[in-house]
């Protein structure tokens, strides 16, 4: 049973993914800005995902205090142009915006990882085809592609996620491709290959876990990018359509009331900025933690 014992050896040779993950967290803790961002994001996500359940007012219901009412205890942020509770809309809008960001990121990660890992691992024809497509997508300025895709595919929330993901995977594929090229040369991958593991198994069990930290960094930055893109396409009227609130379309809608009710424009704008800021800080912090060479000393 030489094969079986070889396989066991291979399993032992699998690098200690567990340990690396802890190192990452310890290093991240040393970076105060990134660690604070992590906590801040956890709180924001908790608030927008649980908040709508606790806050009694609906984001679509018209209140009895009229339009553009100032803040009161019942309506902490006042009401909007149609007399809807702004606090409820901020909570629900945040939920949609962050969900779009998270889903688009996940989609991008899946597409990007598959394409990058396959191109790097299989080489030859697969590599040339996949990397040419990646390069072509890099040569089209994102926004042109997004605009065209949204007009033909429609602006439902699902399509917005899909279209953002269809442009977001490119960067991730490049990162994963580079890392795969590096890791596939290692002895433990060779050993797995010699032990007769299938290509799929080698990729999923041996190569991808090594790249996971880089994927997490890219994913964090991809969320930031997706949220910004969603708000930008909302500005052009091609994002998720009202009455479904998102921070992007609330911002777009607030423009006409910028003098009478500036808070309508300031709130979603500030919310988008600080969430994206926190994701960027977290992504940078994770990158520094992964590769101390880049860390600011």
């Amino acid at each position, binding site marked *: 049973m030489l094969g079986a014992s070889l396989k066991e050896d291979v399993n032992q040779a699998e690098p200690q993914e567990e340990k690396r993950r802890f190192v990452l967290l310890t290093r991240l803790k040393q970076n105060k800005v990134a660690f604070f961002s992590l906590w801040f994001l956890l709180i924001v996500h908790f608030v927008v995902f649980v908040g709508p359940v606790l806050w009694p007012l609906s984001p679509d219901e018209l209140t009895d205090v009229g339009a553009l009412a100032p803040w009161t205890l019942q309506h902490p942020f006042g009401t909007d142009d149609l007399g809807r509770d702004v606090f409820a809309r901020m909570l629900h809008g945040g939920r949609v915006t962050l969900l779009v960001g998270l889903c688009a990121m996940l989609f991008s990660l899946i597409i990007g990882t598959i394409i990058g890992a396959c191109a790097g691992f299989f080489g030859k024809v697969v590599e040339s085809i996949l990397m040419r497509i990646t390069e072509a997508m890099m040569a089209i*300025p994102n926004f*042109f592609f997004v605009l065209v895709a949204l007009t033909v595919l429609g602006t439902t929330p699902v399509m917005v996620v899909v279209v953002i993901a269809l442009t977001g995977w490119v960067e991730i594929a490049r990162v994963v491709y580079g890392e795969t090229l590096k890791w596939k040369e290692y002895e433990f991958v060779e050993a797995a290959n010699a032990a007769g593991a299938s290509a799929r198994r080698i990729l999923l069990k041996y190569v991808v876990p090594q790249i996971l930290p880089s994927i997490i960094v890219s994913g964090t930055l991809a969320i930031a990018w997706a949220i910004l893109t969603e708000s*930008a396409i909302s500005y*052009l009227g091609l994002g998720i359509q009202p009455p479904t609130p998102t921070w992007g379309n609330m*911002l777009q809608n607030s423009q006409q009331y910028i003098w009478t009710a500036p808070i309508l424009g300031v709130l979603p704008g500030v919310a988008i*900025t600080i969430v994206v800021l926190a994701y960027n800080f977290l992504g940078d912090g994770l990158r520094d933690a992964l590769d101390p060479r880049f860390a*600011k000393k």
Partner: protein
Amino acid sequence: MVRFLLNRFGQSIILLFIVTVITFFLINLAPGGPNGVMRMDASPEERQAMIERLGLDEPVIIRYFEWVGSALQGDLGTSFNSSEAVVQRIADRLPYTIELTVFTIIFSVAAGIILGVMSALKRGKATDHVINFSSVIGLSVPSFWLGLMLILLFSVELGWLPSSGVGPRGADFEFGGWLSHLAMPVLILSTTVLPNIVRFTRSSMLEVISQNYIRTARSKGAKEFVVLYVHSLRNALIPIISIIGVLIPRLLSGAVITEAIFGWTGIGTLIIEAANGRDYPLIMGITVVITLVVIVSNLVVDVVYSQVDPRVKNLA
């Protein structure tokens, strides 16, 4: 050099081919495809006539090759909505976008190098932190929101700058008016690339000043000023040329939003019109032209890079 250029030319053709395939099939195979051109109130006969006139009754693959055939002869078709030649419409708009992006690059590179060098030389001090923090903020603010705030401040409140348009052109060109129209769009567009240039300059500069030859320069008694600005900066700047190539697609992307905010009649506002009007020939034309712009500018960047960096120059 000739071999390098030929190689790049071949790659560019393949890239363009893939880009056109992706766009063409995205447009034509998506539900609601080109048939969306039709208005709701059109009678079945009118629809049929229109489908035949636009050649939409042929299979997609045939239409694609017909399109490629005429595109190779420099004919990108006729715009659905304005019945003008696509080439003409793009030629009218493209110079404005190029003007906007070129001035943005000049501004961002100048400001980025100054800030990046400052940040690197004051590493770990307050200046460094402020610059780093501001770069991340610049990357995180929705640019259209920042643009609206600037319009509120400079156009509405203070009345210093015009809020939209490309300014006086042609016969009544006037420098002051031109500059005041350009100022805010350039500032907003630069937020998409400036932070990257700052960060890149910072790390490039930090890497150079830790090199041995800089220590040698110091130990042979060169003045600190000369060490920093003659020995270090010159070498730190070379990689910055290469990052400009990477940032060009992002810059053109950002130009769409910037042009929309400031009513800048470039190719960004044209793609918005084309997309909203489902003007398929125009969409295809713009995609091809904008990809060409990216490819050509990347080629220029690479050629400049190979001429500036003696290490790359000798390799080629």
